[in-house]
């Protein structure tokens, strides 16, 4: 009750001194607007990264194993990876690693000519195990996916990604048609749904999938893998799963304890966490700048409020003489600081929100508004008000009413 009355007194004083109030809000507005925008961009980046992994893997609960210890330049293909990751490794992970539920294997290559009548293209060719789609928890758009029988019998069947389909079969139903991959005829038996962009930003739809055994023995004539996707049993234990798979592979490859891995494991959950934690240098600098803006905003509030306390000594004296206790005075001035800062925060958030909305519209970007950072920014502005209002409020409560009323 009393707090409500004090709050209305605080709001009145803020309205009375409009210029001072808006000056106090300024720093907080700038700080909060940039903070909210940055945090929102960071969160949007995180989501985008997660989405791309999800596009590639279909599930977020999987880890990726690639041959080779160092980073491969560009996308790994049969041409540029060492022949160290074997089919037997995949089988062993599937049967021996307790943290792993299922394993899909991949052999892929680029720059292979694909022809249909007079049309030609060179999409990525992926030999995949029949459980590849199952791992994604998806279904084909049309036709059927590669089956275990087809894989066992080295059938020449192919499933097309939407890009290939659009490029080679405009206005035509590809199902049942025969395409030639490196001059080997394949029958189109299924069509994939669109997957969008992968972690590197490239389209995942310019692909042709064929059974991995067909790929290994009829097309590429290689007996090693370019990639292995291992679905983890418990999404919260992806780190343990990673460690377990690494230990198993080191043992199978007889790697000495001091030697480096001859494979690379990507744990999407960990990667996303890293992206979120670190951010880019630019983000960090900008976050620093907005933190400084907030700090300046807070200091401005503190100094202007302190000056106001000196100017309003008489008011404080009058309030004390009609029954205000020291805590009442503290409360009133603290509320003023919090209101100012909160108003600045809300204005800043509104500006930031509007700014993001404007940029995404002008640049025609996908919407990246995330509400949580904005809510956090409001809380931050409240804390700024509380922190920097404390000293002036304390100072106000220490004004001697006798002195103040005499002056």
């Amino acid at each position: 009750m009393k707090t409500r009355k004090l709050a209305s007194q605080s709001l009145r004083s803020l309205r009375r001194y409009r210029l001072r109030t808006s000056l106090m809000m300024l720093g907080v507005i700038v700080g909060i607007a940039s903070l909210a925008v940055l945090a929102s961009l960071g969160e949007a980046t995180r989501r985008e990264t997660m989405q791309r992994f999800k596009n590639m893997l279909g599930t977020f609960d999987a880890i990726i194993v690639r041959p080779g210890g160092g980073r491969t330049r560009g996308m790994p293909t049969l041409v540029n990876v060492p022949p160290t990751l074997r089919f037997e490794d995949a089988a062993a992970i599937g049967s021996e690693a307790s943290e792993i539920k299922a394993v899909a294997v991949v052999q892929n290559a680029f720059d292979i000519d694909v022809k249909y009548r007079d049309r030609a293209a060179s999409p990525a060719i992926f030999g995949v195990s029949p459980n590849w789609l199952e791992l994604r928890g998806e279904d084909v758009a049309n036709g059927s996916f590669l089956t275990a029988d087809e894989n066992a019998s080295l059938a020449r069947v192919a499933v097309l990604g939407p890009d290939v389909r659009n490029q080679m079969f405009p206005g035509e139903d590809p199902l049942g048609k025969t395409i030639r991959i490196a001059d080997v005829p394949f029958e189109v038996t299924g069509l994939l749904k669109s997957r969008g962009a992968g972690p590197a930003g490239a389209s995942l739809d310019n692909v042709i999938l064929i059974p991995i055994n067909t790929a290994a023995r009829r097309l590429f004539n290689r007996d090693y893998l370019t990639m292995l996707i291992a679905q983890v049993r418990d999404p919260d234990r992806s780190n343990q799963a990673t460690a377990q798979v690494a230990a198993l592979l080191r043992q199978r490859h007889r790697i000495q304890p001091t030697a480096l891995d001859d494979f690379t494991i990507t744990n999407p959950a960990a990667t996303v966490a890293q992206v979120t934690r670190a951010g880019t240098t630019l983000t960090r600098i900008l976050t620093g700048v907005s933190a400084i803006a907030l700090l300046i905003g807070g200091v401005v509030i503190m100094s202007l409020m302190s000056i106001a306390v000196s100017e309003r000594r008489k008011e404080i004296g009058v309030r004390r003489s009609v029954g205000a206790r020291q805590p009442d005075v503290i409360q009133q001035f603290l509320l003023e600081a919090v209101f100012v800062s909160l108003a600045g925060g809300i204005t800043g958030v509104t500006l930031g929100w509007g700014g993001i909305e404007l940029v995404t519209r002008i640049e025609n970007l996908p919407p990246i508004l995330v509400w949580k950072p904005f809510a956090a920014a409001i809380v931050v502005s409240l804390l700024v008000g509380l922190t920097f209002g404390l000293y002036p409020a304390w100072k106000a409560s220490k004004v001697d009413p006798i002195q103040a009323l005499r002056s």
Partner: protein
Amino acid sequence: MIELERISKIYQRGQHGTVEALRGISFRIAPGEFVVVRGASGSGKSTLLNILGCLDSPTAGRYRLDHEDVAGYSDRQLARLRNAKIGFIFQSFNLLPRTTALENVEIPMVYADGVIDRKRALAALDRVGLAARAGHFSSELSGGEQQRVAIARALIHRPALILADEPTGNLDAGAGRDVMNLLSGLHREGRTILLVTHDDNVASCAMREILLCDGQLVSDQSRVANLVDGAL
């Protein structure tokens, strides 16, 4: 009603020096009295007023206000007394700037337990003849009007004691007369008023005069109050 018993106040000045602003002051004020306190500068009038107004505590002695022994009260308890039982009127009016007359009158209600009762605030303004100016900012009011708003503010909680410190000191003769008529009227309604002044004319409105000199009470005389408006 109001009882001072051997009140003294000693201020610390510097490291060793002390100033004895009040030395063993004792007197009583009965309900409905109109008392004027006079004395030269430095005689202890302001200190006495601050103690009576519960803004300051005596170094020694007993102060009973409306059956409460105030000595040893905490900041919180003193604040409650100031809110409920004291009405201050200052020489320099002390209205809040950029605040309407009505809002000024309502301020004591902010620190009381109840709600802000706009009707009662308007009634108080009406009592001092300023209901029509309720919405005016204090800067838009004349000195006399400001002091009348201050009186309305002092009246809002029906205080046991109205303390006025040179209430006409900053006013011209006409406005001063209005304010004194108002105070005399309040006295006739039965209010207890203690007024500090230098002005003989102002002092003549009171029925009792206390004279302070050098922190001591040197005389305490009752007399027939001059309630005739024309005397001022």
